[in-house]
């Protein structure tokens, strides 16, 4: 279990995280989301020991990531990993093999052949997506207990995304790994994350189960034969609304049946309830707090 408590960190004069606390249970796949500059990457760097926290603490089963024994169980894949002019997939693998002696070569070989990567070609000749494939192959081959991925799917094509998602689920099921993924692609996270943390304004805005989060909101599409009534949303827990002429799409934070009944009272030509995905829930949450 990962426990982050009262974490505060500054980058220069800029306070990036303030009093961040969260708990990640073992075997959980957690999506770390937030607008640009929310502090997702900083939080991941603090969690894996790259940055040393100014205040607060991070504990992995009661152990600090500052200890190398703890870091033996952690693997962090940054959003833009460094490679030299002569780095190859094989040379990168050798570096990690030196410090993760239990690296699973079968997993590595399987993924390298799945992605059809040439191990001897310099990484600089790879496309962004291919480099990402190579790093993901190494990260998964390490079989870490805690895998921290920053913008994991950035640059990956849909097929590769499917493979990576499958491998992550496999890692969780086979090794009981805990995976934390930061991403801007919330629809990607919704597919396989159990829980989420929204970072905003230097701290945790919201956290919990993704299913519960999306079920909390309800979305309705409405169309009117005449003009949209001015008091359509009066007294309703409206979160966000988009209006295009006589068509309205609104998201509410409340009981769907009750809201549907009150909307019906305005006699719309069309009233249709639609599922709310995680991205809409995220936007609703962030906009609902008066932030863009």
């Amino acid at each position, binding site marked *: 279990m990962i426990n982050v408590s009262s974490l505060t960190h500054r*980058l*220069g004069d800029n306070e990036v995280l303030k009093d961040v606390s969260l708990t990640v249970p073992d075997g959980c796949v957690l999506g770390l989301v937030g607008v640009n500059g929310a502090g997702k990457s900083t939080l991941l*760097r603090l969690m*894996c*020991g*790259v*940055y*040393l926290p100014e205040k607060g603490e991070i504990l992995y089963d009661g152990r600090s*990531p500052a200890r*190398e*024994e703890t*870091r*033996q169980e*952690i*693997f*962090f894949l*940054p959003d*833009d*990993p*460094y490679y030299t002019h002569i780095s190859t997939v094989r*040379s990168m693998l*050798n*570096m*990690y093999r*030196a*410090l*993760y*002696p239990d690296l699973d070569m079968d997993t590595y070989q399987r993924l390298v052949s799945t992605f059809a990567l040439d191990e001897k070609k310099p990484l600089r000749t790879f496309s962004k997506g291919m480099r990402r494939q190579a790093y993901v192959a190494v990260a998964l081959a390490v079989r870490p207990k805690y895998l921290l991925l920053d913008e994991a799917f950035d640059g990956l094509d849909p097929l590769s995304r499917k493979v990576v998602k499958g491998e992550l689920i496999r890692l969780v099921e086979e090794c009981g790994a805990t995976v934390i993924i930061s991403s801007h692609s919330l629809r990607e996270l919704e597919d396989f994350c159990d829980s989420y943390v929204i970072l905003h304004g230097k701290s945790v805005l919201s956290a919990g189960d993704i299913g519960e989060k999306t079920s909390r909101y309800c979305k309705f599409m409405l169309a009117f034969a005449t003009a949209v009534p001015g008091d359509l949303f009066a007294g309703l827990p409206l979160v966000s609304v988009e209006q295009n002429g006589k068509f309205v799409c609104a998201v509410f934070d409340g009981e769907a049946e009750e809201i549907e009944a009150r909307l019906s009272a305005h006699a719309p030509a069309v009233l249709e309830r639609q599922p709310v995905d995680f991205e809409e829930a995220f936007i609703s949450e962030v906009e609902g707090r008066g932030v863009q």
Partner: protein
Amino acid sequence: MTSLRRYALYHAKTTLPRLAVIAVVSLLCMYAFFDVHIYQLEGRYNYGTCQPGTLTMILGVAATVMPILELAGFKNRRNLDTLCFLPISRMKMAVVHYLNGLFQLVAIGLFCFGAAAIWLLPHVMYFNIVSLLPFCALALLCSLLIYSFFMFIFMQAETTVDGILMMLVYAFLMMILMMVVSLMDGFWQYMPDGFTLEGAFLYSPLGIVSRSYGAAIHGETPAAIDGSDVLTVVMWSVISLLSALGYFITFPRHRVEKVGGISDSFFGYRVLIPLCGFCLIYWNGEFFPLYAVILILMLTGYIIYRRSLRLCRSDLLMLAISLALYVFRAV
């Protein structure tokens, strides 16, 4: 196998090509500058000459370049993202990089001295080849002083360019300080006979060894080591020892998030620019054109430090103090 040994082995393996390149370049330098000549007088071979200073020059350059090669990777934030989460403590990383550079420095030294011995072997009757042994040992020790000093200085910078600039200034800093101290009444009275400001140059210990054993290789009696030489070597040994200590203290505490930013270490520009500036102004006295040059150099230093034309209040204060110091000296 411990993480230290595994990382050390990995690092040693990956830096082997670099060692090979440096060895080849060193050999080319030996070929160009070692310059073995046998002179004939009256139809007989009489004496030979060579340039033993080539060996100390190579070691001096290697000891200067090696810290940059070993630590440049730690001046790249993207690289640190992939290094600092690895399951090895930062102290162990510091040890591995220090020792790897040291071993490579020693390897280059042994390689060059070995090449020199092979070169001189056919002319053994004209050269005292045995003196190459103590020459090698002492030259390696002196290059270790430079290496340790620069490992600490480079670690204080947040970028490679800042590190190189700081190394350049620090190589002359002690000399600048001594220039000022030497102006004080009674300074020379307490210095050993023959002491000159040259002794305050970082590379002076290597020069002393080169001078003494250069003569010994040619079969001449080397100039006696005097009090001034001892003072030079002791001074730089103490500074290097403290530098090595400083390196092992600051490396694990270095904040990754500062890398790539302004080099704000106490041992960096913050102290270097005013210190060098004030010393040079004090040494210069009342000569205004030179003061103007020093002022421009200080200003340039601050612009490099801040990477901007907008200087901080503290920088402007230091420039103002430099003007006050000039007026004080002139009056």
